[in-house]
């Protein structure tokens, strides 16, 4: 019993799920669900379909090269059973998994950092340009701090209205 990788989206296919397609040249394609299978039948290239792992790796959204990937390699020759080795392997798998997911999330965080800087710059600019919508330049000249003025309505006939919303 083996867990396979879906050919289209690269998610794991557990036993009892999905479809295996064998082509006439004896190449086997595993699919995790009918969504991937139908996409394949439509001859879509997974490298161009945004939500697949293939796209994400190709366009640098996800981590591609790492030493943690070398631990998992398909072995064709079975090894003789050794209880200690089996125990160690099981413990190691958990640790390797943790390290790998940490590294992957760091990769994404770094990727998103540059966007953050840019956005901050943009925000500053917007503030500068659009301050006249919330504080009149005259008021700004008098009081150069950025605290917003409160609404005061001085109308001779009507009563003072406090806490009016700005729009009608």
């Amino acid at each position: 019993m083996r867990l396979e990788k879906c050919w289209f989206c690269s998610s794991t296919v557990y036993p009892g799920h999905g479809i295996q397609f064998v082509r006439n040249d004896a190449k086997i394609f595993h699919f995790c669900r009918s969504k991937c299978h139908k996409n394949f039948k439509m001859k879509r290239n997974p490298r161009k379909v945004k939500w697949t792992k293939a796209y994400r790796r190709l366009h640098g959204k996800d981590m591609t090269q790492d030493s943690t990937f070398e631990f998992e390699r398909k072995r064709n020759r079975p090894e003789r059973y050794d209880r200690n080795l089996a125990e160690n392997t099981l413990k190691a798998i958990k640790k390797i998994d943790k390290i790998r997911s940490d590294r992957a999330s760091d990769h994404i965080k770094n990727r998103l950092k540059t966007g953050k800087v840019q956005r901050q710059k943009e925000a500053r600019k917007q503030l500068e340009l659009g301050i006249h919508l919330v504080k009149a330049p005259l008021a700004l000249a008098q009081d150069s701090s950025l605290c917003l003025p409160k609404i005061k309505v001085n109308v001779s006939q009507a009563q003072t209205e406090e806490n009016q919303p700005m729009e009608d």
Partner: protein
Amino acid sequence: MVQYNFKKITVVPNGKDFIDIILSRTQRQTPTVVHKGYAISRLRQFYMRKVKYTQQNFHEKLSTIIDEFPRLDDIHPFYGDLLHVLYNKDHYKLALGQINTARNLISKIAKDYVKLLKYGDSLYRCKSLKVAALGRMCTVIKRIGPSLAYLEQIRQHMARLPSIDPNTRTMLICGYPNVGKSSFMNKITRADVDVQPYAFTTKSLFVGHTDYKYLRYQVIDTPGILDRPFEDRNIIEMCSITALAHLRAAVLFFLDISGSCGYSIAQQAALFHSIKSLFMNKPLIIVCNKTDLQPLDGISEEDRKLVMEMKTEAMKTVIGQGGEPTNEEGVLLTMSTLTEDGVIAVKNAACERLLNQRVELKMKSKKINDCLNRFHVALPKARDQKERPACIPQAVLEAKAKQAAEKEKRKTEKELEDENGGAGVYSASLRKNYILANDEWKEDTMPEILDGHNVYDFIDPDILLRLEELEREEGLRQAEEEGDDFEMDGQELSLEEQEALAEIRKKKSLLIQQHRMKKSTAESRPVVPRKFDTDRKFTTRRMGRQLSSLGLDPSLAISRARSKSRGRKRERSVDKREGDGRDAMDIDDNQASKKLRLRSTSRSRSLSRPPGEVIPGEGLKDSAQKIKAIKLAKKSVLKRNKNARRGEADRVIPTLKPKHLFSGKRSIGKTQRR
């Protein structure tokens, strides 16, 4: 000698059927239509043809019958005698003779009537001649009806006779009834003869085939023979006698040692002596059957003596056949068909004896040279005295010896299974022969899947080392990461700034929303609204609120707006009329207006604005422009109103086809088109 194939004789039809067949054929195959007015020669010809045709058919069919049935003198005497035994030669010949006479009679009849027909003078006469001829022929056939039936029966029986080739190697099995002849037959050949406890189970000859030294031997099983004078024998026994008499075969005389057939050895010996004349020139073997019930050594003295007598007789045949010195084993043999003890030996001995005899005969005959190659196998002459046995490598011999030993020692899994309760109860432990470093691990189950990974993919003898390295690396990397994180925090906005930014964004999004709402209806709305400020939202209050939210003082702006706006009051029109800077608050004026009010009972309407007055916010330049706009609007509505249309889009046609337009003549003029 003509070869007859008994199975290919055509069916002999019944008397009545025969007549029907021939007559219907005549009717179908000859012309049927004839009229009184034909020429006489034509009429004669017509009927002559019918008569001749019928005669010819009868002749043909009867000839085939006569030819296909075998002539008893012409076939092999074995078959001749067999047929005689079964069907009686005389009856047979008589039947065929009758058929022959019938044939001749029919020919004569036909000849006579054709002669008469030549002189027939009318249709009626020719017809009756023809009827008479056909009638007589049919009577002849009717008379031979019984013969035809008899021949049909014979034909059916003959087709079922066993196909015995009288010339090939044959073995004949004979003896008293119930001695075990048919059982022996079943054992050595593939024939499936009935074996039953009662006598005369086998009623006719049966043939089987067996092989010996790559040659095929016919084995014939006969019905049992009783010891009776020749004349008293019945048909069944006669079959076997015939076979014995005519076939050149090896004879196996069966003897029942135990006497369970119901006849003693003495009786059987008596039979033997009475038919020994039939054993001339045939290799004879005496077979003692049923030794499981009574071994040969256990019989009484007298019986033994009888048996020895028979043996000496049999020996005579051996000696008579060409001087082989006394080969005792080939003459008297014991066996038991039940235990199959000695059956093969008997068969081999019989085949051997027969083969030798036939070979001898062939050697003595003139045709020896033709078949010499079948007897003699040439072997190469030895070149020198060196022995050259077959070459088997030593390893193979050792392996064979070991294999043999192993087979006996090991306890198989199947035996284990049987011991522990059979197939459904015991399930074999497939792991018990595993070769592992520690035997305790044999029953371990290792998980194949963990957390979405295949465990087998991770197995590696030095996985611990690599894991350590990895963890070290990871430690280093994490330290680096933290260093990097501290750099970034300089440029964030302060709380105030964030609030301001949020407000700006909110305002902007509202503006955008409003614009979108307006935009979506722009296509269906005129660009200039009908009336400025329909919702009445442009008030000073609102203005004041908005200005103060921006941080400006709105009071000045409000008062200015108020002063500029115009209220709809009477004073306005009063001002216009007088206009000299009069004080609006003059009492007289008030009084004057009061008077006006008191006097006029007719309530004039409240003064509306004059038609051409421009209201600010409307979008028109001056009074002239507004008047022109009003005119244009009225003009566009005029035509519609005259057509009683409710609006621009009203295209209703109350009657689609008014009758007066689509029908009716004209008093003057044409109605070529409507």
